[in-house]
């Protein structure tokens, strides 16, 4: 490759560093200059070096320049995961442009609204020519952006925004979560040292590019000179592909939702496979069934295992290193203890802070958190200022109901909004799901409340069984009766063999699972 474009990029990175700006991009560009041959990305069987990546960043930057965008204005990037998409994000960060990264799976109307809210005058896609989103969308966004300019970069005295992610929107329109440059730096520093991600460490990236999980998989890895083994989003459920990728790329760190581990366990069982290179296995995003967890050490004989709890708003806030010898005795894996620098409160129904053991809503304040949703009206009641030992700190109300045990560990109990009344009794649909998931022939479950004239609500469970095909509603009811109050045992249980619908963040989409059932009932 030629040296000239790299020099341009380096000068940009130096400027950024001098101004205390994104060290992620600065450190990547240092690597481009001093270790251009080191691997940065693995994609479709190809190895992309830091030198190659630097060249792609420069190309993206040239494309940006040709667009003559307003100085430091936000841009939207609508892209599936690819090396070019990563280069484009780096180029924007280098230009100190806040980047809104929504899910590519969102509808056109929702996308337009999000881009308008974020003040994105341009929506970029790396897969075609520069500014490759259709002229129609771009023009509409420009019009709306003028009226609704909340571009986070412009507010004086506020830390500069690096990335704008969105919540999953499973309960409505996704909310924009701006993450400041310092917050991203603090997180990537913590994650790098916690999971020993350094020069030469290969980290699997399973999540789509717009997920908060990429702050670890991709941005932490690149900042510290590691190599990202990228899973193609279109092949994310192809177990054989996933196993081959892990085997050939000597991955040391994996962070993923439980689904990936289930897929790998099933694929590896057929081939008696062991992934010896993996040292850190991070489970996040959802509760992992115990039978999946118990099968992990055989697949990853050299690994340590972690349950990590966090949200897009706060990033990782709790971590629990799983003691595999202890797993069988527990019904729930703890979310563990607060990450360094994190404050956590358990707050009871009445707003009282629970000291010691007890249950309540989990409130957290982390060094990595957003300063609030971009649309300020949404922050009311979700971000709460509280005085602690060192002054005022903003806590995020997670909406998760937790139990703090006598030993100080915390387990999830359900969601504040997940409770329904069944025959007058308050039941957590998540708690019911947790119990059903512990059945070793259950792969996935969605429990929904169906309004009922008599009972108020009746619970309906859609359950995906495993390949053994032995599970039926009676055996599942026997299992439920052991762990649930009678009123919480679903009135109807539907056993299916196909995967349940997922939200853009990979969790089971309860409403769609329910919709399929309602639709089916209507048509039969």
């Amino acid at each position, binding site marked *: 490759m030629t040296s000239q474009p790299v020099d341009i990029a380096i000068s940009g990175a130096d400027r950024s560093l001098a101004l205390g700006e994104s060290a992620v991009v600065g450190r990547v560009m240092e690597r481009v200059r001093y270790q251009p041959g080191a691997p940065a990305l693995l994609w479709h069987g190809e190895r992309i070096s830091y030198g190659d990546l630097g060249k792609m960043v420069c190309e993206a930057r040239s494309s940006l320049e040709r667009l003559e965008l307003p100085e430091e204005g936000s841009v939207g990037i609508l892209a599936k995961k690819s090396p070019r998409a990563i280069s484009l994000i780096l180029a924007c960060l280098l230009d100190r442009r806040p980047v809104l990264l929504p899910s590519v799976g969102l509808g056109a109307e929702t996308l337009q609204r999000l881009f308008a809210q974020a003040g994105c005058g341009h929506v970029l896609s790396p897969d075609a020519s520069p500014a490759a989103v259709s002229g129609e969308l771009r023009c509409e966004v420009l019009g709306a952006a003028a009226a609704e300019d909340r571009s986070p970069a412009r507010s004086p005295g506020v830390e500069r925004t690096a990335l704008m992610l969105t919540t999953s929107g499973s309960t409505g329109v996704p909310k924009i979560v701006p993450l400041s440059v310092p917050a991203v730096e603090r997180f990537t520093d913590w994650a790098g040292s916690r999971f020993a991600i350094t020069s030469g460490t290969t980290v699997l990236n399973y999540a789509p590019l717009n997920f908060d999980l990429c702050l670890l998989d991709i941005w932490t890895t690149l900042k510290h000179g590691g190599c990202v083994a990228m899973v193609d989003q279109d092949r994310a459920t192809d177990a054989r592909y996933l196993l081959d990728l892990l085997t050939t790329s000597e991955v040391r760190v994996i962070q993923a939702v439980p689904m990936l581990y289930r897929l790998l366990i099933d694929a590896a069982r057929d081939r008696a496979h062991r992934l010896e290179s993996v040292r850190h296995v991070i489970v996040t995003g959802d509760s992992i069934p115990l039978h999946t967890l118990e099968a992990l050490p055989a697949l990853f004989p050299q690994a340590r295992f972690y349950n990590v709890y966090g949200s897009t708003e706060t990033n990782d806030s709790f971590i629990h290193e799983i003691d595999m010898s202890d797993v069988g005795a527990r019904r729930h894996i703890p979310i563990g203890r607060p990450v360094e620098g994190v404050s956590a409160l358990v707050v009871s129904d009445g707003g009282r802070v629970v000291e010691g053991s007890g249950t309540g809503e989990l409130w957290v304040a982390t060094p990595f958190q957003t300063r609030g949703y971009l649309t300020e009206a949404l922050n009311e009641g979700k971000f709460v200022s509280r005085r602690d030992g060192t002054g005022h700190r903003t806590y995020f109300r997670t909406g998760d109901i937790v139990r703090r045990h006598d030993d100080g560990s915390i387990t999830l109990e359900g969601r504040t909004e997940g409770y329904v009344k069944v025959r007058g009794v308050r039941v957590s649909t998540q708690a019911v799901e947790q119990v059903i998931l512990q059945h070793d022939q259950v792969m996935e479950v969605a429990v929904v409340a169906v309004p009922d004239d*008599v*009972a108020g609500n009746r619970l309906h469970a859609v359950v995906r069984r495993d390949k053994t095909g032995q599970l*039926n*509603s*009676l*055996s599942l*009811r*026997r299992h*439920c*009766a052991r762990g649930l109050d*009678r009123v919480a*045992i*679903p*009135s109807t249980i539907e*056993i299916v063999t196909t995967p349940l619908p997922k939200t853009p963040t990979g969790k089971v989409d309860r409403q769609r699972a329910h919709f399929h059932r309602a639709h089916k009932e209507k048509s039969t």
Partner: protein
Amino acid sequence: MTDHTDTIKKFIIEEFLPDVPPEQLETDYDLLAGGVIDSLGVLRVIVWLEDTFNIALDDTEITPESFHSVEAIHAIIQHTQTPTNAT
């Protein structure tokens, strides 16, 4: 006296457990504890018993617990069909 166990089992399976092979439903399995039959389900069982066996349960002292298993339901039929209780 006729044994109606299989008839009852067939009804319970068809109505409440359509995916379950009959041999897996034991006659003493607690249908209430497993959530197979709830208070609304009990009403369906009563209607079926009355139609199928031509018995009236209105005056009999019954509670949901009386229907807690295939055996228990069988006992109700036998009880109501004994000559002393016949109407």
